[in-house]
């Protein structure tokens, strides 16, 4: 079903601060979309509005063909894994996961809770209290607590941010499997672009409370529409064409040691296989990385460089 979740002209504010303005977004049933964007761009605020925790300053929220703008969060059948976990410290892990199921008198409560804990690998922690768990474990309890409710839409606010690299990958795979198995519609917030690229059917790139670009991971990664979008996916050297548009290069595409431009090395760092440089030049800041096989440049040294047109991405806007 298309338009399973529909945000129509959504405007959200905290007092006088407008956090999200006139946002339009359609999410299909069974889709996993990620909201990607820098800190403070309005990702959490948008999620809260979908869940019904935030009064709408303007616009509408539709879920499953119903205008839920005035429906309280308890009746929306939306799940939300909070950035801060928001576990209940007075209840055991089991009771935390059982909280919502008890409220609706789930018949197979014990089984459902244990299945949920099994899924996140915490079955043996059922009797513990959340305060006795690590941050990553708490986050997984929060995930289980939402998933067992089988919501229409599952909102996840940076659910993997406190996990170590390995567990993060495991949970990411687990989430993808869960999503494919249950066909649940998911909105996943992150500011980690590699996570967004790996997980999403569709990426929504946000900037200052508005959508900058929507697209598949491939589109977002290789065809950014603006300087902001380009910078976000690693095209860090931007050359404006003077008419509003321009071109952008990834660090690996910048050629150092020869070429028509030159700049002064401001920063240099060793990154294993490659060395990364930041250069100040007449055309702006240039970020480059070159293989360690090349001779190293010193800070303060003037270096020639080239920006080959064939490796550039064309930008409609450079701002």
């Amino acid at each position, binding site marked *: 079903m298309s338009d399973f979740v529909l945000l129509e002209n959504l405007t959200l504010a905290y007092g006088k601060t407008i956090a999200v303005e006139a946002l339009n977004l359609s999410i299909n049933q069974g889709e996993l979309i990620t909201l990607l964007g820098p800190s403070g761009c309005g990702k959490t605020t948008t999620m809260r509005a979908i869940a019904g925790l935030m009064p709408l300053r303007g616009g509408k929220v539709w879920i499953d063909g119903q205008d839920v703008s005035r429906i309280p969060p308890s009746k*929306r059948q939306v799940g939300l894994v*909070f950035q801060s976990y928001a576990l209940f410290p007075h209840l055991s892990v089991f009771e935390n996961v059982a909280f919502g199921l008890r409220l609706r008198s789930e018949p197979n409560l014990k089984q459902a809770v244990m299945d949920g804990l099994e899924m996140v690998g915490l079955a043996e922690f059922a009797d513990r209290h959340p305060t006795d768990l690590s941050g990553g474990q708490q986050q997984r309890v929060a995930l289980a607590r939402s998933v067992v409710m089988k919501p229409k839409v599952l909102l996840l606010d940076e659910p993997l941010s406190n996990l170590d690299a390995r567990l993060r990958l495991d949970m990411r795979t687990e989430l993808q499997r869960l999503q494919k198995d249950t066909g649940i519609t998911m909105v996943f917030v992150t500011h980690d672009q590699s996570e967004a690229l790996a997980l999403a059917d569709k990426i929504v790139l946000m900037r200052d409370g508005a959508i900058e670009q929507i697209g598949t991971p491939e589109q977002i990664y290789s065809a950014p529409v603006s300087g902001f979008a380009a910078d976000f996916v690693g095209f860090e050297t931007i050359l404006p064409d003077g008419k509003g548009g321009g071109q952008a290069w990834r660090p690996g595409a910048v050629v150092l040691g020869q070429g028509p431009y030159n700049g002064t090395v401001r920063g240099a760092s060793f990154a294993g296989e490659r060395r990364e440089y930041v250069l100040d030049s007449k055309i702006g800041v240039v970020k480059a990385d070159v293989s360690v096989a090349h001779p190293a440049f010193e800070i303060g040294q003037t270096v020639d460089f080239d920006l080959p047109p064939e490796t550039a991405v064309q930008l409609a806007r450079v701002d």
Partner: protein
Amino acid sequence: MFENRAVGLALTLPAAIFAAALFLVPVGILLSEAFRIDGSWSIGAYIDFFSSARNRTVFLRTLKLGAFVAGVSAIVGYAAAFVIVSLPPTSRGRIFGLVTLPLMISPVARTYAWLVILGRTGFVNQILVNLGITDTPFRILFSETAVFIGLLQLFMPLMIISLVSAMENMPKDAVPAARILGANWFQVFWRVILALTREGLVIGGTLVFTGSMTAYITPAILGGSKVLMLETLLYQRVTVANDFVSASVIAMILIVMSFSANLLLKRIATARKSR
């Protein structure tokens, strides 16, 4: 902290002697007074005290008003505290200041203000008469209602302060999380807010109950001799009748009631928690 305990002990000794000599000893003498009749130990004074119907009325009234004031403070306090903690920090500070303002005004001045408001020609009666609700002004002063109102205003800030600090310690998104999991406001209150603020409720409840029971000025001015409470009765026994035995009995009752209230509330709180 100290290198040896003897030094620590030596340092606390003056304060301990001071407290013992000037507080514990006189209180001990006062309290034991009621247990001695004609040189032998007896609880006769207590039996005498409770065999008087008037004393029983005063005792029950004190208990009742203390419980009511604590109960109503808790209900109003939860609503107020919930609003206060959901405000942005700047207005939260302002409202909080307003709530605690009564604590900074002399209880005598505050109580006399109620005389003005609740009197026969006072503010409340003027409104009632002008609205045509009554022809003859109500007699609010020198009634239990007046004492109740006075005590409520006096002690509610303590409850609000306790509950606000308890709520500030709740995890930030616990309430929204419960809402999303399907809890209505009633369930959110019982299963989350109350559960997480029990300690604050016990502290606030004890302060308000004990405070209401032992307040003197408010019942003296707003209740007068018609609506005696234990504290005003105590004062009356000493100054009017020079009856130190009754005074001692009352003092003991007040102490026992304060401690029992605290124990009872604590018991209730921990019993519900361990479930």
